[in-house]
């Protein structure tokens, strides 16, 4: 009877082939592949997928900080839907995202077109306009908060001295419409570089021949932009807008620092309201329900955007 490797293993004899076999096993493409993603996978399952499941469970229970409550079904959702503040928040989120996104797209594409031109100090200009994206948002928002101060606002000071408005000027962070305008301004300020730089990457990829052909046909520079540049930019723009929709909708930093959702909840977004109710108020169940409510709305927006892109 021949002594197979399995018998050798059972007797504890470290057969000469054992290490080699483990190595051979490890060298298989699929084993090696699974092995390499395993650490990242464990991390994402335990700290993203599992907490996501927890959020769903929280939203279906009366879970308060320090007291894990019981299952209550859709009670939290019913409650927040009946809540005036929550409805205001939904409206705020759409106004905020809609206006900020439109401004970022229009201004961003125009900035990208300008940056694509062959100018001196190109690198310097690019570096300057990208800066708001890199600096910690919460800190630069503090700067904006000072610029929108109720008494010492530099914006008002300038507008008054130029003669645009009468003193004392608007209380930016204390009046609802102005507060929304302020929050949108800061979001556009911070997000514009992302739009411009990514669009620029799409822009420089457009072959010169397209423009030359259009020029031969006698197209004006506006015509060239409208009929050549924009259609060719669409795939890049679609991705950038998709990204920006998600991150604008889920924004927290700017509103939290600038207005805390005020005045009278007129600038609350899902994230800031969830923070206020779930953490400051301790009602984790309702907080989770509020932040999860973002998903179907975001899903719908993304769905329509994708459908539009496909149709085009």
């Amino acid at each position, binding site marked *: 009877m021949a002594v197979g490797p399995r018998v050798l293993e059972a007797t504890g004899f470290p057969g000469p082939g054992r290490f080699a076999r483990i190595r051979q096993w490890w060298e298989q493409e699929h084993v090696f592949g699974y092995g390499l993603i395993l*650490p990242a996978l464990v991390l994402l399952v335990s700290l993203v997928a599992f907490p996501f499941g927890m959020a769903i469970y929280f939203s279906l229970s009366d879970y308060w900080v320090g007291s894990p409550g019981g299952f209550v079904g859709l009670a939290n959702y019913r409650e927040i839907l009946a809540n005036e503040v929550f409805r205001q928040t939904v409206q705020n989120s759409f106004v905020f995202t809609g206006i900020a996104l439109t401004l970022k797209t229009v201004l961003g594409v125009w900035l990208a077109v300008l940056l694509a031109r062959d100018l001196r100090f190109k690198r310097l200009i690019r570096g300057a306009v990208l800066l708001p994206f890199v600096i910690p948002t919460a800190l630069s928002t503090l700067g904006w908060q000072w610029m929108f101060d109720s008494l010492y606002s530099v914006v008002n000071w300038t507008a008054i001295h130029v003669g645009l408005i009468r003193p004392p000027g608007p209380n930016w962070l204390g009046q609802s419409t102005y507060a929304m305008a302020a929050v949108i301004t800061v979001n556009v300020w911070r997000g514009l570089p992302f739009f411009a730089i990514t669009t620029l990457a799409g822009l420089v990829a457009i072959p010169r021949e397209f423009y030359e052909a259009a020029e031969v046909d006698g197209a004006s520079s506006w015509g060239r932009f409208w009929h050549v540049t924009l259609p060719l930019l669409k795939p890049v723009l679609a991705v950038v807008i998709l990204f920006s929709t998600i991150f604008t909708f889920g924004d927290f930093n700017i509103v939290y620092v600038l207005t805390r959702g005020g005045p009278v909840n007129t600038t609350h977004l899902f994230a800031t309201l969830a923070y206020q109710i779930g953490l400051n108020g301790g009602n984790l169940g309702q907080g989770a329900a509020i932040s999860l409510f973002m998903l179907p709305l975001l899903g719908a927006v993304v769905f329509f955007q994708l459908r539009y892109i496909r149709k085009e």
Partner: protein
Amino acid sequence: MASATGRRARIGHSVRSYANLVPYVFFALFPFYFMLVTSFKPNAELYNLKSIPFWIQTGVITDHYRFLFARTEFLVWIKNTLIVSVVATAVSVGLSILAGYSLARLHFRGAGTFGTAVFITYLVPPTLLFLPLSQVVVWLGISDSILALIVIYPTFLVPFCTWLLMGYFRTIPREVEECALVDGATRMQTLRKIVLPMAVPGIICALLFSFTLCWNEFIYALTFISQSAHKTAVVGVTADLIRGDIYYWGSLMAGAVLASVPIVVCYVLFLDYYVSGLTAGAVKG
């Protein structure tokens, strides 16, 4: 004659381009300039409605900065942020190199699904996870410590870096790897000695972005940490420099400026990596 008008048209064109760019550059930079000016301005001038806000008339002072070092835990916050950012970045980029290489290069069942899953987790805003994660760190017994941030930050860094690095690994020609394997190198040796050196630009990019994202992170640091001595710079400056309802604008701006300096230094040194990371992260795939 024709060339003269051509040149004039060209010059006119660039003048118009610059004229259009000026408002953008002003809009982007003015807040930083104003923060800087405020941080060096005496309080008497700062809170005087008659003074011109754009520059300093009564002399530059450093009191606001000195206040930061003498009366607050600013240096501790900077130290905390540095530790969290360096450790979380190192761990995340390490994990992402392995995962990114595997997903970009190796064939196995489910690779496509894993790739999509990574992309989806990249798109999940932290807004959705901060409530349950605030409980997870309590259960792990690490709440109110910088360890909580070191453990949680990889959740948004790994998806981003993996996605970024997948793009870079795809650009490396397959033949180079195949040669090494045929020559008897193990897969791990091939990754370490052949692929990694060729992916260095991508790895630098991932390191820079991770470090910046850690340094700038706000909602998790705000949620998980309550003791001042354990705060990060961003949260310390925004939360602890406002006492009650009183805003000390001079020191607030000084804190905001100083806490941004490390990022500005990285940015100035590696501008091109930031640009390429930004476009790769968003557009590839």
